[in-house]
């Protein structure tokens, strides 16, 4: 496996430019009053990883929807194999050999993995399970993907569901495979593996569109980079040029295309003064030997013991789906413990419900911002108070005090820089970064003593990642205990005082975040992975 994951991109590309498999000419798409895409030209060639790079809202996802037949362009042409085509439905896109791994996983949660993979076949047939087993087995061997076909899809982690989508793309006779922000759910290793996978796919003659907002991924995995900004194509870096540039100047060039206003500061990392937390005092939160069974086959957690002191940022690193989310839910009170004990501020809280724990100052920011974290159709102002409903001073004797709520919402929106047209806008219409800010505002309201962040920057763009990380650091600096769950190792290293590493539902080790922590943490993550692999 290391040979694969470390496989360098062969930059030497011998073949001359082939005719594009799919070309976009002057594509435009607008919604009500927003221009999503405007006069975009793109050429997608077999044997090439074409990166679409841009911030959230740059129009990348709209382009994906146009290519996959979910939306129709208002202007311009899509040319497939040299002739203009109208891709009127997802079925038409699939028939043309265009497959998509969607950012928001498009699988039916109630069906098993196998049933999801079998959906696209003739209606009268028995689901061809044996053939599927074989095909998936072959893909699993070839590309190192692994899924349990009998698992109920909704019970898999988002990262695992994404693997199912990739397999679905590979099961078809796909000629162009689109990866829409597929790295946002993955660990550093997972990202490397995906990069290697894309390389193997293009070597087999596929064309790949890889959508990301991370510069280094674009640079490392892409043969050609197109930069989008506010719905327009602002630049393209050809493979020859990409090859000719050294790392630093390529980086510089891309960054200046992407963010005219932002200086190329490199990684989106907040520098952190690492402080020694006085661990002599009593810990605020203590988990002792807690065990929670996973649901139908997914990883549970076993014998987890850890302590968090006030003002400390404890990072929990690990590959997605190793039980991190269960720890968060166990602490927040969303899961019953099978055994073990949780004490918070000296009191046993295992039998308290979510509300009581919140009252004590435990706050949990889920990574599932839109379904678990907020009510999409409710106004921003209501979402900011979702956990205070019925309480003074916002509600009084059963009546809603709109004026008080609005004052609160305006203050919070201002303080946390939530960019929303109005506090009455349904929160579902905001971008991921702004929903995240609103949720943070809500969770920090009142007396927060412990905040658990689950993948706080997943799916956010560069600017919002910087802002979010700064916020997390500030929370820690205010003396609040922080548990930071992330699959992004850079994020953990940038923000944590100590780092716990999860593997297969157990803590593989807890380390001080000192200079050489990176290697040690990586070693524990991979070591755990090798153990069960």
């Amino acid at each position: 496996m290391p040979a694969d994951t470390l496989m360098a991109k062969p930059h030497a590309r011998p073949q001359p430019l082939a005719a594009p498999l799919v070309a976009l000419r002057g594509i435009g798409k607008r919604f009500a009053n927003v221009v999503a895409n405007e006069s975009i030209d793109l050429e997608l060639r077999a044997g090439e990883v074409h990166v679409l790079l841009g911030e959230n809202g740059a129009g990348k996802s709209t382009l994906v929807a146009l290519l996959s037949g979910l939306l129709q362009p208002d202007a311009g042409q899509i040319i497939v194999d040299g002739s203009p085509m109208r891709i009127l439905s997802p079925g038409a896109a699939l028939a043309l050999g265009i497959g998509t791994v969607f950012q928001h996983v498009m699988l039916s949660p109630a069906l098993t993995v196998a049933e999801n993979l079998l959906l696209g076949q003739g209606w009268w047939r028995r689901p061809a399970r044996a053939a599927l087993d074989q095909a998936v087995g072959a893909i699993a061997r070839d590309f190192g993907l692994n899924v349990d076909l009998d698992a109920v899809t909704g019970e898999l982690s988002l990262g695992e569901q994404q693997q199912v989508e990739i397999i679905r793309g590979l099961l078809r006779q796909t000629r162009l495979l689109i990866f829409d922000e597929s790295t946002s759910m993955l660990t550093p290793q997972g990202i490397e593996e995906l990069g290697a996978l894309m390389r193997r796919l293009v070597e087999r003659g596929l064309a790949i569109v890889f959508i990301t907002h991370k510069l280094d991924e674009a640079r490392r995995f892409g043969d050609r980079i197109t930069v989008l900004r506010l719905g327009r194509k602002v630049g393209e870096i050809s493979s020859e040029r990409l090859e000719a540039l050294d790392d630093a100047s390529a980086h510089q060039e891309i960054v200046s295309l992407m963010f005219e206003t932002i200086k190329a500061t490199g990684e989106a990392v907040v520098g952190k003064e690492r402080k020694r937390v006085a661990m002599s005092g009593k810990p605020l939160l203590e988990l002792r030997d807690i065990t929670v069974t996973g649901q139908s086959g997914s990883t549970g957690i076993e014998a987890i013991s850890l302590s968090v002191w006030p003002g400390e940022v404890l990072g929990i690193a690990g590959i997605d789906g190793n039980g991190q989310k269960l720890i968060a839910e166990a602490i927040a009170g969303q899961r019953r413990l099978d055994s073990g004990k949780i004490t918070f501020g000296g009191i046993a809280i295992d039998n308290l419900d979510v509300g009581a724990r919140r009252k004590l100052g435990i706050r949990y920011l889920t990574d599932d911002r839109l379904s678990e974290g907020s009510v999409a159709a409710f106004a921003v102002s209501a979402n900011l108070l979702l956990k205070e409903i019925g309480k003074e001073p916002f509600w009084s004797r059963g009546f809603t005090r709109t004026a008080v709520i609005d004052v609160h919402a305006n203050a919070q929106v201002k303080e946390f820089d939530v960019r929303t047209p109005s506090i009455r806008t349904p929160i579902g219409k905001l971008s991921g970064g702004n929903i995240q800010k609103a949720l943070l505002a809500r969770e920090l309201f009142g007396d927060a003593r412990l905040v658990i962040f689950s993948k706080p920057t997943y799916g956010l763009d560069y600017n919002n990642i910087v802002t979010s990380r700064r916020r997390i650091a500030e929370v820690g600096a205010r003396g609040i205990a922080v548990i930071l769950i992330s699959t992004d190792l850079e994020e953990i290293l940038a923000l944590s005082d100590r780092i716990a590493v999860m593997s297969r539902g157990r803590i593989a080790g807890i380390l001080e975040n000192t200079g050489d922590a990176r290697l040690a943490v990586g070693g524990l993550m991979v070591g755990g992975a090798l153990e069960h692999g």
Partner: protein
Amino acid sequence: MEGLLQVPFLTALLAGAVTAGIPLLLAGLGEQMSEKAGVLNVGIEGMMLGGAYAGFLTAISSGSIWLGFLAGACGGALVAVPMVILCVQRGLNQIVIGIGLTLGLEGLTAILHHVQFSRTYPRLARVETLPIPLLSDIPILGPALFDRHPFVYLAFLLVPALAILYRGTNFGLWLRAAGDRPAALDVTGIDVIATRTVAVIFTGLMAGLGGAFLANVGAGIFVPFMTHGDGFIGVVLAMLARGRAASVLAGAMIFGGCLSLTTAFQIAGVNVPTDVIQMLPFATVMVVLIVFGRQASLPVALGLPYVRGER
């Protein structure tokens, strides 16, 4: 009271349960497919009435009970067409349109009945049965189950047929995906709107057949409002059946039993006010909902229109 639990009473009860249960069974099976696909079809009461009227009119004028069933199915499906156009294709509110269809068909069939039949009250002859050799001789069960019009047997056979469709075919998967997360079905190249359209038309066919059975076999006559909430009971049956056709059958027979208690009590010589007896199925609905309602697991996208590309 000593008439109870004796052969005539039980025979009448069971036979009545089947007669009253078949329309419920058909309505429930039909509704089940719509609900699986994510369409809450409250218009089913109207579809039954449409089927009952069309079925009776055709049977009385042609003299053929089978033509009557065919017409009933077509009548039910015809009422389902606006549901398809307005709710499945245009994405309007399913409950509002469903109630509208039910009320509309109640009025329409009542007027048509008034114009055509209210002076003469024509009646169909009792249908001929097709006794199944040996089985029909079993006491109590025989007359109730195995000495019936062939349509009854066909209705029962629908249950395993649908169970196979749901469990053993890709179409069964499509239905579940359409009701659970339609976008996930759409991106695999299967048309969500077409899948839901098939499901709703099937509901219309089944409800129409149920209505035609009610008029042509159960009553032998068409009267306004004769479905008497059967369609709504079908909705409840489908919701409680957790996607299993066999559970719809069980529920239909229980409710059918409640409906047939009236006649059975009369045969047994017990005098209970008919109002009380007629209330029984609805009381049962309430009890069943209280007891089993929590177990109902409904498709996530039930009642939600699907618009491609919308988040």
